């Protein structure tokens, strides 16, 4: 049985774990960021160097466009009024060419284009080439959630509920005033990791790593944390618009405490399984029987379950392993048309075993619960030895 550890002192990270979002545009920090036009376009001015640079270039192009657009439209309207047709009055003769004018209106736009290209390329290189002291975060996108592995192997356990999908949205804590480098890949289809506040995105592919970098902002003295949306920006199926994440920028000292808080340490299989569930499975499977994209795990393990095609199968360890590694082999009845992500190569047998241990605690037929402090795969007394039915 899991023992409750009585809290002797208030959790020092309680403020950081707060599920309430602190988006900068709602805070006092936003007031001095950017002018009116920046606020209209971006909600707040850029908060870090890359964002400031991107906004500056965008506004340069914007004012250039506004100037010439107004000029052209004013001429158009003026001439439509001045030269409107009057009965019996012919149009005056006019030239059909004007060399100097045509050269001018070729050279001026061309020069502007060259400038835009140069500034754009320069800004882009700052986004894709990371400084050598950047902290590297390994990002994996999959339908329909993000997973980020920190340098020490830690993964977030913090979530906030936005009412957008079951299981809530992960909060990824990062330190202030630090260069961060994202190295990203996908487990299935194309995704794209967009942080609008940082004005950058890159696509995620299953057969490569992609990367970009940013330098986090310095927080105000009284700010506990500042949140930034992460949106998936490449269409990836049913819950593409629910694939949110939060980057939470915290003071440097708090960052290390958070990593310690997340650190796996020694975990029982059930604890490991629950952690793996929360990292990989929670976006599609519930544990309390309520409906979601995939079947709930409540009372799953140990029961006969109906699969499409009309037959049934016993939900034992091998069924779970096969479902995790080769999800299309058997589809649960009622879930035809859903494609579960393929986790072979991502979750190895040890990890699947931990998941099984956790699943057993959710089922009436799960057998005796796993021991608290004995490690290893101590199966319950009424289970058969796991056979490898998946065979290559």
């Amino acid at each position, binding site marked *: 049985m899991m023992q409750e550890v009585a809290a002797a002192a208030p959790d020092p990270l309680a403020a950081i774990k707060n599920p309430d979002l602190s*988006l900068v545009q709602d805070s006092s920090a936003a007031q001095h960021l950017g002018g009116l036009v920046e606020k*209209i376009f*971006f909600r707040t001015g850029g908060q870090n160097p890359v964002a400031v*640079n*991107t906004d500056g270039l*965008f506004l340069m192009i914007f004012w250039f*466009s506004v100037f*010439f657009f107004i000029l*052209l439209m004013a*001429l*158009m309207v003026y*001439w*439509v009024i001045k*030269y409107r*047709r009057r009965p019996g009055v*012919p*149009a*005056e*003769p*006019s*030239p*059909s*060419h004007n060399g100097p*004018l045509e050269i001018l*209106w*070729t050279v001026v*736009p061309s020069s502007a*284009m060259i400038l835009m*290209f140069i500034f*754009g*390329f320069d800004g*882009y290189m*700052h986004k894709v080439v990371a400084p050598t002291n950047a902290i590297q975060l390994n990002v994996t996108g999959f339908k329909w959630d993000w997973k980020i592995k920190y340098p020490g192997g830690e993964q977030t356990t913090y979530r906030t*509920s*936005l009412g*957008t*999908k079951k299981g809530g949205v992960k909060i990824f804590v990062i330190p202030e005033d630090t260069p961060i480098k994202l190295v990203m890949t996908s487990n299935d*289809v*194309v995704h794209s990791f967009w942080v*609008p506040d940082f004005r950058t*995105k*890159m*696509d995620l*592919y*299953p*057969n490569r790593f*992609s990367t970009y970098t940013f330098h986090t902002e310095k927080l105000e003295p009284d700010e506990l944390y500042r949140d930034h949306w992460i949106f*998936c*920006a490449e269409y*990836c*199926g*049913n*819950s*593409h*618009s629910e694939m949110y994440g939060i980057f939470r920028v915290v003071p440097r000292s708090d960052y290390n405490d958070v990593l310690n808080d997340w650190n796996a340490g020694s975990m029982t299989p059930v604890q490991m399984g629950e952690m793996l569930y929360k990292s990989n499975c929670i976006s599609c499977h519930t544990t309390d029987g309520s409906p*979601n994209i995939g079947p709930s795990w409540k009372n799953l393990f140990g029961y006969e379950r109906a699969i499409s095609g009309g037959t049934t199968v016993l939900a034992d360890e091998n069924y779970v392993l096969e479902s995790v590694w080769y999800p299309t082999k058997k589809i649960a009845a*009622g*879930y035809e*048309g859903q*494609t579960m992500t393929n986790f072979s190569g991502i979750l190895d047998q040890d990890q699947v075993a931990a998941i099984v241990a956790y699943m057993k605690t959710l089922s009436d037929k799960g057998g005796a619960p796993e021991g608290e402090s004995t490690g290893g795969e101590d199966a319950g007394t009424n289970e058969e030895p796991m056979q490898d039915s998946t065979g290559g």
Partner: protein
Amino acid sequence: MTAIDTTHTQKHHDEGSYLDHRGLGFWGTIWDWASTVDHKKIGVMYLFAVLTMFFIGGVAGLAVRAELWEPMRTAEDGTTTGVLLNFGTPVQDPDTGEWIRSYDISPGQAGNTYNRTFTLHGAVMIFMFIVPAIPAALGNFFLPIMIGAKDVAFPKLNLFSWYVYVFGSLFGVIGLILGGADTGWTFYTPYSIQTDADYWRVTLMVLAAFILGFSSILTGLNFIVTTHKLRAPGMGWFDMPLFVWATYATSIIQVLATPVIGITLLLLIFERVFRIGIFDASMGGDPVLYQHFFWFYSHPVVYVMILHGIGIISELLTVHGRKHIFGYRAIAFSSLGIAGVSFLIWGHHLFAAMSPIAAMVFSALTFIVAVPTAIKVFNWIATLYKSSIAINTPMLYGLGFLFLFSIGGLTGLPLATLSTDLHLHDSYFVVAHFHYVMMGGTVIAFLGGLHHWWPKMFGRMYNEKAAMLGFALVFIGFNVTFFTQFFLGTQGMPRRYASYVDDFQTLHQISTVGSWILAIGLFIHLFTFLHSLFAGPKAPPNLWGGLSLEWEAESPPCAHNFHHEPLIKHGPYDYESVVPPHCSEEDFPLPKQRS
């Protein structure tokens, strides 16, 4: 003076025109149209087909905007709110056995209907409406007439192209009836390989696009040969109306680029059906390869859409301004230049998926195409100088085009710029940009062309006041719908989202209201045109005072367009020295000669 027999008057309305079906009876008329090789009848059939597709795609677009009125939310207990479109499959609840909608089992399904709807919107609008619209409807009708020919070079091939279009659309409609695809009109892999694995829907939609491509290729081929070979004696290349130049440039792109999408879509079908693995990472293939293949066509095709619209604008501003175009050769050559450069810049659709070197090259090349496009806009505005502008619906659409296309073109600049594109790519900013150029550009030009040439095509005039009201609502509605989307994009709203965080709701609601205003404007046009066909007054052959050859023909034209082969004695824009055919100098006075 041209050798047109002016004794043929419009005494009996359709008598002697291509629409004349006296003596044929009902089935005779049907057979006459089904077997026609007359480019005018084929153009009219295309016109009604593409307008039907525009309607279907438009309804889907309205549905998309309606869904976005309110974000979807799922409570912890699984109940979802804010879902408007849900045509999920009925399934039996595994626990209770009762029949419920699939999204009540799995809330993720709530987005699925939306995803199918925006896919329908994009696929129908691109493949079945906007690519064929101006070329196959107006191009077919007017290219031969404008160069003084009786028909296109290969009339039977023209009819065959029409049936290929019908056949391809049929596959698309079947796919839609079966539930459509949820891949987006771009069918990106690996998603398009994996989704709907046990259905044929995606394969049918892709097959439809593949077949439709042949209609484009054959039509383009026909037009190129027609332009080279069938110009009336005396009409050199630089005596052609700019609409003909535009048709020519468009046709070149169609012939060269469409085969690439054909092969790409075929490979995609083979990938799904035979698992060849070319785009599938798990089999050693590459998803990015698909994107390069896809956009290698799909970028030039947007110039198919706009170049032809540009040709219409050159006609609208000159005829209704009674003035020559400023910079004829600049516009003619820039059309060809844009057609050529358009093949070099496809990578700007995937800056977020390529190496820095590739991104740099494509960004630089993309800026090149902006210059000839800007020059065209300057030429048109200069055309207005010292003209004689009639404020009517075609002219309003021409001016509206200048406004909307300028915004569309200018908003392409931050997308060509690499560092801003990494923010704006796949956001609503892109959605706004392409609607401004495709709808604010091509569709506005198309509507202008329809209002300009409708009296010529059908011999009936529409109600001008109603048409102007339609224009006003279309213009206002379009801007309200899509201008807000620029801000949605810069503020962080991604595209293809069925739902969103609360911050974006106000802008989404404004955009949705705009879509209703736009729809009302379009419906006004629909009713105005239909009304004109049944009860509109007869149109004289040259009510606008145009100088290109279609205005010498009758309204509607006779079966072979002209009674005698036209003699070319003046250019298409010689408004300073030529009284328009069928018109009097009183109505269309010439300027006094300069001494």
